[in-house]
């Protein structure tokens, strides 16, 4: 924040502080009135045993009071701090969301819900650290904080899953209650390691400590709230919460003591490298968190009380110090130690707050910090196994005294010639919160009995605990120890700059820097991703298709290998009955077409040969007793060949261009893979023929068709009645395909106005014979289609086949007389016909609903027609819909594709095809067309795609 001549008025968003304040009051009232523990239970995912269970005991309450109490002050502070900042609404929004997530985290009884809120706090921490995202450095810090805490969160999830599997519950209270029965299971160790990873990353323990100083890029209210008072304490809270279940395990105690001790000592060594006040405070926060973790791991009744006391004491002194540093930053524009000093006279309230907080941090008698440190000392001395811990803690305490001195004495009282002249106190919203918190710290130091019940109760939640007062020592030895620590701390304070200069001169091997490891890891992730992307996703379609087919081969091969020996396959047998002979003939065609389609170079020929594959499979269908399928396939092939023939001319005009032939090795590889796949699938067919399909299904259709569905063509009955909803879906797909291709076709038509190369002939130079023939055939085909449709329910035929016959008729007409002529002869036009027919099918199932029957139950009535009668049914409407949808969609598609070949658009084209076209002989027309194209075409055809490869 820069120095501003007149501070803008505090933001009104600060009124949000009333919410945490009300919650604070409510929580306090709940505690005082003895309502604890509060429990509630709402099922969330019963199948997984996850519920929104709430369990608020004194430990949770301690955290709730910290979150809401400090939260209220943070909102007040932020109102002044962010006044005039355009991003303040975002700041308040994130902070508020964070507070809610924190409250969820500490009040829930379910580990999964805890994980959920835990990750939300990580994400909000990311957003808040990167609040000033304009700076690259801040974005890096935010990313680092997220990677580490959210990564740890995933480890926590793994741990929670493992734990809930072992214990059979994810409720924390039940875990604690049932722990003795499963805590010795080997899986518990794995679960604990994962949970440690989650807790240590969140609470910035060694070796994940480095993200916390980085997170100081955040605005001051955020650093105060998230990165000193609350969020970083979540890891400590989780460990304290689970302590009753695992406290007896050696793994638990050893890990916590070692990691906690290392985390309390190491940052106090690193702190001398820093000149930024906020980073100095951050390192001391890491150290304090380490002390808390260490305390949880220590045995003895004093440890739990000490944890609770220090948790509170740290929040009460660290938050005011952060506030104070924020005020200094605001007033002077810098946080660098060498540039500030002697501000005490100008910023009295801030200085007073910092002074009291600093005393508490140093552990000077009469402050609450002293009470906490006193209890810690006793807790540590209770345990003779960890003697070295005591020596380490003397150093940590001394260094804390020195750091407190740096943050207070140096900043506010030491003379400094370079002190900024314009520094002045900010508005009350910025100095009131630290002053209140720091005074509270002093008051509780004088009257620790005020919080004794709460702290002892909280400690009881962690295990056997003593009361605060019962632990206090008044032995001379403790004063002697205090004296030693203070003398040491004061010496360090005066030697601070000297140690700093010496330490920055020391070599700092990268291998010892956790942040270096982190940077290496991030680079490694990018590299691995890059290598994997290049090898797996090279951007080449043939490789993708090949990979998919290779996996299909693998799957089919495994299936076949499990199927047993080939001796179980049916023997090769051939009976020379009529249908077998037809099948054999079809097979010869099929194999020949399959080989041909692969070896033919010419595209036109290749497409025609591919049509042969369809024709020969139609013959096979016929031989297998599937006339409906065979007719459908035949009509499809007819339409396909007609469309292709028309398209091919288009393709030639576009000079599609043969791609460069693949290297021989590639082609051999493709051939080998294709043959392997083909023979494996063939093997599967042979293997599968040993099993006959479920006879119950066949029996169902065989016996029910006539009495229930009044149909003798069972295939049609299945399509329009038993599986009508399926069929409906399929005609909708067909209709949508048509609609989806319309924009593409329009694009192609626009391009189509390009002049035809001289000498090229198109289908529009149509033979008179063809035209005459089609004129005669078209109505006949439509009548045939209608007959096939109407008789379909009892004899081979039906909507699909009828529709395809109509499509073939339209395609033929389009070839002979032009696309527009064909499209105009379709009733309602293709789009409306297709969509309307699909809707008709959809609606034909509705009447049944009024009779209380399921959707698509068809209704029947008999209409007398003189000497005969006709059975009228909603089935007919359904099949008519199928017919219309197929005709409209595929007929429209085919006609428009054929129409791509035509030279001109518009109604005039309808009657023109018989006349030979003269356009290409007229150079003037050609030129105009070319310019026309250039003007309309939005996409230049020479897009630089080739230059890239």
């Amino acid at each position, binding site marked *: 924040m*820069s120095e501003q001549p007149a501070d803008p008025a505090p933001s009104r968003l600060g009124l949000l502080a009333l919410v945490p304040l009300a919650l604070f009051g409510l929580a306090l009232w709940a505690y005082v009135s003895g309502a604890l523990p509060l429990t509630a239970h709402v099922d969330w995912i019963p199948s997984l045993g996850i519920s929104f269970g709430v369990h608020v005991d004194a430990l949770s309450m301690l955290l709730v009071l910290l979150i809401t109490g400090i939260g209220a002050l943070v909102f007040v502070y932020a109102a002044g701090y962010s006044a005039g900042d355009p991003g303040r609404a975002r700041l308040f929004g994130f902070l508020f969301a964070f507070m809610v997530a924190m409250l969820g985290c500490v009040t829930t009884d379910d580990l999964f819900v805890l994980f959920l809120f835990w990750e939300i706090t990580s994400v909000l921490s990311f957003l808040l650290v990167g609040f*000033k995202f*304009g*700076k*690259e450095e801040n974005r890096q810090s935010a990313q680092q904080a997220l990677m580490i805490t959210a990564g740890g969160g995933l480890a926590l999830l793994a741990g929670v899953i493992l734990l809930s599997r072992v214990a059979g519950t994810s409720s924390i209270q039940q875990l604690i209650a049932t722990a003795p029965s499963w805590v010795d299971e080997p899986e518990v160790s794995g679960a604990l390691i994962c949970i440690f990873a989650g807790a240590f990353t969140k609470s910035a323990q060694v070796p994940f400590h480095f993200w916390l100083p980085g997170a100081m890029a955040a605005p001051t209210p955020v650093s105060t709230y998230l990165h000193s008072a609350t969020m970083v304490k979540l890891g400590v809270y989780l460990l304290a919460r689970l302590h009753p279940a695992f406290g007896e395990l050696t793994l638990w105690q050893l890990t916590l003591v070692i990691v906690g001790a290392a985390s309390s000592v190491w940052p106090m060594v690193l702190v001398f490298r820093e000149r930024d006040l906020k980073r100095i405070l951050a390192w001391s926060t890491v150290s304090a968190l380490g002390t808390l973790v260490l305390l949880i791991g220590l045995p003895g009744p004093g440890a739990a009380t000490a944890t609770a006391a220090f948790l509170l004491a740290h929040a009460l002194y660290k938050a005011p110090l952060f506030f104070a540093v924020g005020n200094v930053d605001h007033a002077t524009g810098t946080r660098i130690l060498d540039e500030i000093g002697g501000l005490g006279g100008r910023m009295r309230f801030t200085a007073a707050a910092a002074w009291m907080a600093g005393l508490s941090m140093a552990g000077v008698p009469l402050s609450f910090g002293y009470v906490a440190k006193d209890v810690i000392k006793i807790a540590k001395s209770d345990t003779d196994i960890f003697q070295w811990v005591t020596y380490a803690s003397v150093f940590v305490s001394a260094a804390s005294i020195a750091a407190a001195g740096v943050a207070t004495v140096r900043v506010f009282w030491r003379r400094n010639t370079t002190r900024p002249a314009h520094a002045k106190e900010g508005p009350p919203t910025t100095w009131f919160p630290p002053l209140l918190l720091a005074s509270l710290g002093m008051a509780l130091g004088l009257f620790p009995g005020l919080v004794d019940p709460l702290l002892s109760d909280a400690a009881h939640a962690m295990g056997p605990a003593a009361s605060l007062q019962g632990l206090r020592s008044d032995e001379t030895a403790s004063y002697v120890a205090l004296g030693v620590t203070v003398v040491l701390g004061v010496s360090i304070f005066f030697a601070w700059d000297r140690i700093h200069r010496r330490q920055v001169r020391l070599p700092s091997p990268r291998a010892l820097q956790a942040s270096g490891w982190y940077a290496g890891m991030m680079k490694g992730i990018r*590299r691995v991703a890059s290598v994997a*992307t*290049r090898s797996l996703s090279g*951007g080449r379609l*043939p490789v993708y*298709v*090949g990979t998919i087919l290779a996996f299909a081969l693998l799957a089919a091969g495994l299936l076949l290998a499990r199927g047993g020996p080939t001796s179980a396959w049916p023997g*090769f047998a*051939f009976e020379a009955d009529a*249908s077998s002979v037809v*099948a054999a003939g079809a*097979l010869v065609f099929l194999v020949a077409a*399959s080989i041909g*389609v692969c070896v033919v170079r010419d*595209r036109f020929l290749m497409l025609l040969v591919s049509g042969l594959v369809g024709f020969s*499979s139609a013959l*096979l269908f016929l031989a*297998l*007793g*599937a006339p*409906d*399928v065979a007719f459908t*396939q035949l009509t*499809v092939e007819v*339409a*396909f060949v007609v469309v292709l023939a028309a*398209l091919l001319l*288009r393709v030639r005009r*576009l000079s599609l261009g043969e*791609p460069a032939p*693949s290297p021989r090795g590639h082609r051999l590889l*493709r051939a080998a*893979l*294709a043959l392997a796949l*083909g*023979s494996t*699938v*063939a093997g599967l067919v042979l293997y599968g023929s040993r099993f*006959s*399909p479920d006879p119950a299904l*066949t029996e169902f*259709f*065989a*016996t029910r068709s006539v009495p229930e569905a009044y149909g003798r063509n*069972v295939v049609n009955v*299945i399509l329009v009645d038993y599986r009508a909803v*399926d069929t409906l879906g*399929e005609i909708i797909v067909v209709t949508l*395909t048509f609609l989806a*291709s319309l924009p*593409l076709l329009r*694009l*192609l038509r626009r391009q189509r106005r390009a002049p035809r190369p001289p000498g090229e002939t198109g289908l529009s130079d149509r033979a008179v014979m063809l035209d005459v023939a089609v004129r005669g055939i078209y109505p006949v085909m439509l009548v045939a289609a209608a007959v096939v449709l109407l008789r379909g329910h009892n004899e081979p035929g039906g909507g699909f086949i009828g529709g395809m016959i109509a499509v073939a008729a339209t395609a033929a007409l389009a070839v002979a007389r032009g696309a527009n002529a064909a499209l105009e002869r379709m009733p309602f036009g293709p789009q409306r016909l297709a969509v309307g027919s699909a809707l008709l099918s959809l609606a034909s199932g509705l009447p049944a609903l009024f009779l209380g029957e399921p959707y698509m139950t068809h209704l029947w009535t008999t209409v007398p027609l003189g000497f005969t009668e006709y059975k009228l049914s909603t089935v007919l409407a359904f099949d008519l819909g199928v017919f219309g949808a197929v005709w409209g969609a595929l007929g429209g598609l*085919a006609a428009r594709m054929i129409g791509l070949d035509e030279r001109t658009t518009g109604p005039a084209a309808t009657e023109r095809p018989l006349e030979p076209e003269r356009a290409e002989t007229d150079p003037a027309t050609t030129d105009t067309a070319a310019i026309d194209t250039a003007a309309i075409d939005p996409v230049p055809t020479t897009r630089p*795609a080739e230059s890239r490869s």
Partner: protein
Amino acid sequence: MIWLLAIGIGASVSAGAYLAMSRDLLRCVVGISVLAAAANLVVLASGGARPASPPVIPEGLERLDAAAATPLPQALVLTAIVIGFSLTCFSLIVVLALKQRTGTSDAHDLRAAEPPPEDDGEPALERDPELELPPEDEGEPR
């Protein structure tokens, strides 16, 4: 009969797979439609591959003859054929549109979505000026 079918299926699957792996998009489309035809044969073969009469109940009878073909696979294949046709047409149109936009139908040249990696091995990014971050602001003013 099952052997005839199996050989036919094997041949058409091989041809379809070979073409589908082609660089030429047109061949790729044809390959997929041949594969679809082969899949139809497989489905039909699952109904029992034997010469059979069509699954139509003759007039006067109430139930399907035991010698008739299994009807369900036929119903499945019938719709699959029609859908296959519409999808093949659609794919052809896409190939044509691609050719028009990019000037090529060679799959190896179509790299707009996945450009080849840069020289230093870093994955290439298509630089879209609209997606670039605005120039950095000065952050917290001093």
